[in-house]
């Protein structure tokens, strides 16, 4: 608590002498300059408008405080009686108009540049869903999802919070430096907003529609952002992490990813005929459940009454197995339950369903194997 108090006092003093203090401690008080040409232009525009406002503020508030100090009854002044001055009134209508015009010109130029997504080098489809991002490289055979990596123990105070608390993911998006990267942004459920402050890119992910944005990052590095549009319970827990690599490194990385995904798919086909033991299923199932399902259905399977259904002792997890597989694989239309067919492997699907049917005292004893999922999907088609 003492540390907190000192930090609080430090922050207070930082506020009073704002700019100088912010250089000493890493307390950020202003917009980031960012790492792209566009983000620098946006920053300059921000400072331009800020200084114009500051100047107007000094003049207007200066006149007002001068009045408050000098034109007070206690000084024995006699009030003037003027109440109109057409010339002055025309002047302070026209001058602001001209100032606004001066702001509008650079703003227009920057906006037109930001909106020009043509001639991109690579494209990434960014899909938001409650509460994760899914990245798919259109030119490569690579896609994966990106989930917050901060453990719940840190959020609920059982472990100390680490440096990138809430701003870390299991699998960041990787992009090449010096290339125009186009983002195609959409959503599977509610509206999300994909935001990386250092790129000055923020675009809403609207379900059923695709938005475009782009960036060209010059410096390799790790850049962090968050979902910016309220998207339900875990809106705060949906970070964006982007790693920018030199083009050669990027190329090596993405080829490696393609290879990895290919072998994983082959492995999956091979494993279809293999039976997993209950322990294996439960272990993988618990892992998958905590990463994918616990945000809504809660770690104890109780759900949130009236919002997210419970799974412990009620519903599909203790009912018909095929119906259970159906809802996990295909989702439930008209609810927050999404389809996991494309986000999870068949082993993971089998494991998580087995886990749900046997955890929290459900104890149905049912085991679902990857082959069962495979048959179900085949039968569906």
């Amino acid at each position, binding site marked *: 608590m003492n540390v907190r108090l000192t930090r609080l006092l430090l922050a207070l003093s930082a506020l009073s002498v704002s700019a100088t203090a912010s250089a000493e401690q890493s307390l950020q008080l202003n917009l980031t300059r960012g790492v792209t040409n566009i983000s620098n232009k946006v920053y300059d525009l921000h400072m331009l408008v800020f200084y114009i406002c500051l100047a107007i503020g000094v003049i207007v508030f200066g006149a007002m405080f001068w009045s408050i100090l000098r034109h007070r009854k206690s000084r024995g002044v006699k009030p003037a009686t003027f109440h109109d001055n057409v010339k002055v009134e025309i002047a302070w209508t026209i001058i602001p108009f001209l100032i*606004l015009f001066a702001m509008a010109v650079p703003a227009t130029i920057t906006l037109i540049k930001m909106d020009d997504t043509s001639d991109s080098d690579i494209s990434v489809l960014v899909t938001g869903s409650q509460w994760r991002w899914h990245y798919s490289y259109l030119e490569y055979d690579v896609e994966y999802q990106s989930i917050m990596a901060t453990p719940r123990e840190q959020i609920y105070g059982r472990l100390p919070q680490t440096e990138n608390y809430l701003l870390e993911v299991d699998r960041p998006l990787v992009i090449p430096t010096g290339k125009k990267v186009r983002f195609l942004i959409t959503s599977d459920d509610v509206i999300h907003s994909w935001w990386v402050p250092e790129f000055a890119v923020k675009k809403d992910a609207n*379900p059923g529609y695709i938005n475009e944005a782009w960036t060209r990052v010059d410096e390799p590095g790790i850049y962090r952002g968050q979902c910016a549009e309220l998207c339900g319970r875990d*809106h705060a827990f949906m970070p964006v992490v982007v790693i920018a690599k030199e083009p050669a490194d990027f190329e090596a990385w993405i080829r490696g990813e393609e290879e990895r995904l290919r072998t994983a798919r082959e492995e999956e086909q091979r494993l279809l005929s293999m039976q997993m033991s209950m322990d294996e299923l439960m272990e993988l199932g618990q892992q998958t459940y905590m990463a994918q399902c616990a945000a809504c259905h809660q770690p104890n399977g109780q759900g949130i009454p009236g*919002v997210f259904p419970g799974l412990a002792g009620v519903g599909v997890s203790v009912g018909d197995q095929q119906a259970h597989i159906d809802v996990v694989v295909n989702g439930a239309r008209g609810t927050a339950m999404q389809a996991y067919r494309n986000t999870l492997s068949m082993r993971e699907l089998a494991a998580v369903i087995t886990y749900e049917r046997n955890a929290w005292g459900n104890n149905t004893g049912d085991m679902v194997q990857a082959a069962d999922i495979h048959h179900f999907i085949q039968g569906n088609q």
Partner: protein
Amino acid sequence: MSTIVTDTHSAHDAHDHHDHHPKGIKRWLFTTNHKDIGTMYLWFSLIMFFVGGSMALMIRAELFQPGMQIVDPHFFNQMTTMHGVIMVFGAVMPAFVGLANWMIPMMIGAPDMALPRMNNWSFWILPFAFLIMLSSFFMPGGAPAFGWTFYAPLSTTYSTDSTALFVFSMHIMGMSSIMGAINVIVTIMNMRAPGMSYMKMPLFVWTWFITAFLLIAVMPVLAGVVTMVLTDKYFGTAFFDAAGGGDPVLFQHLFWFFGHPEVYIMILPSFGIVSAIIPAFARKPLFGYASMVYATAAIAGLSFLVWAHHMFTTGMPTFASLFFMYMTMLIAVPTGVKVFNWVSTMWRGAMTFETPMLFSLAFVVLFTIGGFSGIMLAITPVDYQYHDTYFVVAHFHYVLVSGAVFSIMAAAYYWLPKWSGVMYDTFLSKLHFWCSLISVNILFFPMHFVGLAGMPRRIPDYALQFADINAIVSVGGFLFGFSQLIFLAVCIKCALKKGEPAPAKPWEGAEGLEWTVPSPAPYHTFDVPPVIK
């Protein structure tokens, strides 16, 4: 406005003889008297101010430190939603309607509002609307948790059943507002005293006149959009669902077509209040009365052409973004005219600093700061960085709390002696002002920084670099919240008639018909209209 000369001695004789009304609860249930209804609106709004405020304190308590300590994220979302809904529809709007009810008839020399029975109804459906809204806390899944802006599909497919109650109570609030607005327009158009031409009306009447037209124009849009949410959720329509040929962004267009005029509904009457108070305590006529009227009308007109500046990140065509950016920047011109006029009114006046004046001066400065951040937000390319961060939260709290709410406080301190007949406790009122002024800035000013540094709004937990400023903001929040209890004490003392009897005109420089009747204002005023020369 410059030459209000009144001939009211005949009107005075008529006072006090018609003071017949039922006693007890029946007086308040069945009243058609504009003063009773105004009083009820004002008390209702004060209660809602504390209800919504306690939700804000819950939000600030959770945000004091990083990590989840007090509430569940889902409940946090209920708090932000209900805080917004209650403050907008329960606190600020009813306060302005209450002021309109009390003051407009007295300012234009009318005996009452034009449609007194409708007036009764428009008030009495309000408490039920909020009972319905608040009862949703006891439903499974709790109250609405999709933000006061209730964006689809979070409010349709993905919401709990409290949405139905939300929609129903929104309908009732909308009806109440529309009826209130009709009443104001009919009263002003038909019941002005002889000689009170439009350009002699006090600015509070003018700003409310324009506000009422805004209300009538946009409340039906709100009613439409909540109905579409209801049918999307329960009756299989797909207005906002792409899978059925709809568009979730359509929701935002409809909502903000209501929502932007709505924010001016919450600030135009403030302009009227401040334009009454500053000349009174500067002892100098309002500078540029006519330009004030035209500026108000210009702001109201422009408010219909700027709605999509709330939606720059939704992916609009560049041309549309540019149009809405230019229109939004234009609003700075008439708003600037108003601020310049207020400062010119003070210029070479003979100012004194009674509590209403203090709140009005704070209003001018802090509202203008909110205006500056408004100009910054208008610049589309930079708005991409500000949008949905605490910078926006700072901006709209500057214009709504230190703007609209401060002006309502100023109005209360200006007219309380007229309403209650007693002079309030000056020491307490000044204490309230200074506590509010200091704490409101500790509360909202640092939000600018944390927003620029990249903290999104509507999150119950945040990254570590935002921790220090959030702690300061939370301290400011609690200080501001508890400072308002001083205001409650002042109001209760006045209601209990504890204090020196107030003269008919307690402020030396005050102008207007309301000061020609005794304090407290008799139950019926201006049965015989005054003559304005």
